[in-house]
């Protein structure tokens, strides 16, 4: 049984899904012979050929639009956007068609597609390669939005996303593509697309995060533990639909919550979670709900990009603020 990285989990799930269902096709820029700029589709073209692994012209609107079209006609296309920034031209087809096809036609047509792309910063890449647009997609009805943060979750959630009869936005935290290795059995077992994962149990404080921020959040949890604080860490994993129950249940025990996100703060997913706590979770709160986020500024070019993103230090700082309150 192999120890694999997150991105290898992606590749493994793609291969598995293509193997088991001939209607699954992969398309995008450079996904063919080149195997994708991050190698997520490495080997697939060789194995499944031109009709299953399709290098597209350089045209994101076209990729999104034809993916929607294919999905309505019995295919299960898995489209890749090369980087997060290049999903912006795709939003029209995703929002106006993918998320609406089933509802618009009262179920006559559906749109079982996946749009997957590497997201987030921290890999020294040029401008527009470092965005975290999950909140945009999460605000659009009719979509599932999923972000794995480990090799096994990449495998299980992507398999579920491809098999799902409705459109799924699958965001891959590129900064941790090769961070950790994990044993993952290629057994075709999928993971549910509507639950959070508790990565660590604790009683004093709940840290909620997703994607690459799991790394800094776990570091912060370690530091806090070493100061005697018992920290629970939750990986949201599926942003839409959001599993607030798990989060509220945790805060019921800890009374304190800090939410960590890499994206800009204003109208981000962290705000949705905090809002959920301000409603159904309010009686459990012993302290303000803090959000540690990317700034409402543009992710800087690489020399300063790490200054933009929440660090373990910033997370610990916020944690201490909410722990101070008695």
């Amino acid at each position, binding site marked *: 049984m192999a120890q694999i990285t997150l991105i290898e989990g992606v590749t493994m799930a793609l291969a598995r899904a293509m193997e088991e269902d001939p209607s699954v096709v992969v398309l995008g820029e450079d996904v063919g012979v080149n195997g994708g700029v991050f190698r997520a589709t490495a080997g697939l073209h060789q194995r499944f050929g031109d009709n299953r692994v399709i290098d597209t012209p350089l045209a994101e*609107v076209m990729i999104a*639009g034809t993916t929607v079209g*294919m999905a309505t006609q019995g295919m299960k296309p898995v489209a890749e956007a090369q980087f997060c920034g290049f999903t912006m031209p795709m939003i029209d087809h995703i929002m*106006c068609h993918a998320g609406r096809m089933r*509802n618009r036609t009262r*179920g006559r047509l559906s749109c079982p597609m996946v749009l997957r792309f590497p997201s987030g910063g921290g890999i020294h890449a040029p401008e527009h390669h470092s965005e975290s647009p999950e909140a945009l997609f999460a605000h659009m009805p009719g979509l599932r939005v999923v972000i794995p943060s480990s090799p096994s979750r990449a495998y299980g959630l992507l398999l579920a996303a491809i098999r799902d009869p409705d459109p799924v936005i699958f965001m891959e935290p590129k900064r941790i593509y090769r961070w950790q290795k994990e044993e993952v059995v290629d057994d075709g077992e999928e993971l549910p697309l509507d639950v959070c994962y508790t990565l660590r149990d604790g009683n004093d404080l709940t840290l909620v995060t997703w994607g690459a921020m799991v790394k800094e959040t776990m570091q912060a949890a370690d530091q806090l533990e070493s100061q005697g604080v018992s920290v629970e860490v939750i990986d949201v994993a599926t942003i839409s639909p959001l599993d607030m129950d798990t989060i509220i249940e945790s805060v019921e025990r800890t009374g304190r919550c800090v939410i960590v996100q890499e994206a800009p703060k204003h109208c981000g997913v962290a705000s949705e979670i905090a809002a959920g706590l301000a409603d159904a979770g309010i009686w459990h709160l012993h302290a303000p709900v803090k959000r540690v986020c990317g700034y409402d500024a543009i992710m800087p070019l690489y020399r300063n990009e790490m200054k933009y993103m929440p660090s373990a230090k910033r997370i610990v700082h916020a944690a201490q603020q909410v722990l101070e309150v008695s």
Partner: protein
Amino acid sequence: MAQTVAAFKVDYFQFLKPDGKLVEDQQVPALARDYDRLVELYKLMVLTRTFDKKAVALQRTGKLGTYASCLGHEAAHISIGAAMREEDCFAPMYREYGAQFYRGVKMSEVLMYWGGDERGNDFSGPKHDFAWCVPIATQCLHAAGAALAYKLRGEERVAVSVVGDGGSSKGDFLEAINAGSAWKLPLVLVIVNNQWAISVPRDKQNTAATLAQKGIAGGLPSIQVDGNDMIACLWAMEKAINAARAGKGAFVIEMMTYRLSDHTTADDARRYRPNEEVEEAWEKEPVKRLKAYLIDQGAWSEEREAELLEECSKWVQQAADEYIDQVENNPQGVTAMFDYMFAELPHDLEEQRAYAEQFPEDGGHH
């Protein structure tokens, strides 16, 4: 060295002149002598026009929402439906009822849609056809995707999409041409050039001689036809669809017609276009033209016309009644907006659905 590396042209085809006579100086397609077929098509043109008039009347009396008339487009639209097979896929914009009627969509379903009821989109036409598409030109890429699906599966099916003169400026249409070219897709892209995009005249879309030549960007065969000439339209559509089905790739047709009505019932075209232009256009309109030809050929008569008009009125009234009956006596409930969002309702929507049920009549019908 200057060397011509590529040369192109756009040809214009017309077989039936505005006066209902065939052009003399060339061969006309056999189709022009297939009077049975032409009579069938003519009947659908008349039905479509009767329907259109009724729909506008329903809107004026508050029984229908905003409606986009197809007045003047009957030859263009119906030729599209007539050239397609059931298993082909149609990706309409919003006013091609003629094409859809030919494919089995019911008049009452068109009314349901414009009457603000999603069930109109779950129509009796081919189940794989696309719904009406409001975001202009996006449908062209859906058709390209459908065509790609058929090609990948080795099916002999063709996808057909329609865009307007306005919509032909949009990147989606231009990228669909490129997709058709890159993947040699069984795809026919029809520009129904009715000279106006709401208040913006054709000349403001660009200064090129034709819109058909956009197909040249992808090296696609690209022609222009008289869009009020049913024979030319259908001939061109069959040529394009046959080529596409035979694996020869995509095709662009520009049909030159005229929007005789307001853009929609929410529009008042008198604000921006001269009445003389509209009057002139009435001289060239497609229904009168085919009728004159058929009568000339002894294939039609005023008596049959009178009968037809009566029948059409009856069918249209039936459709209107059906529509009103559905929306008034069997309306969609508040939960309908949740029930088709996903194959299986996620937990958050389940909660919202339960909450909405507490306010079933809320907001009401305006």
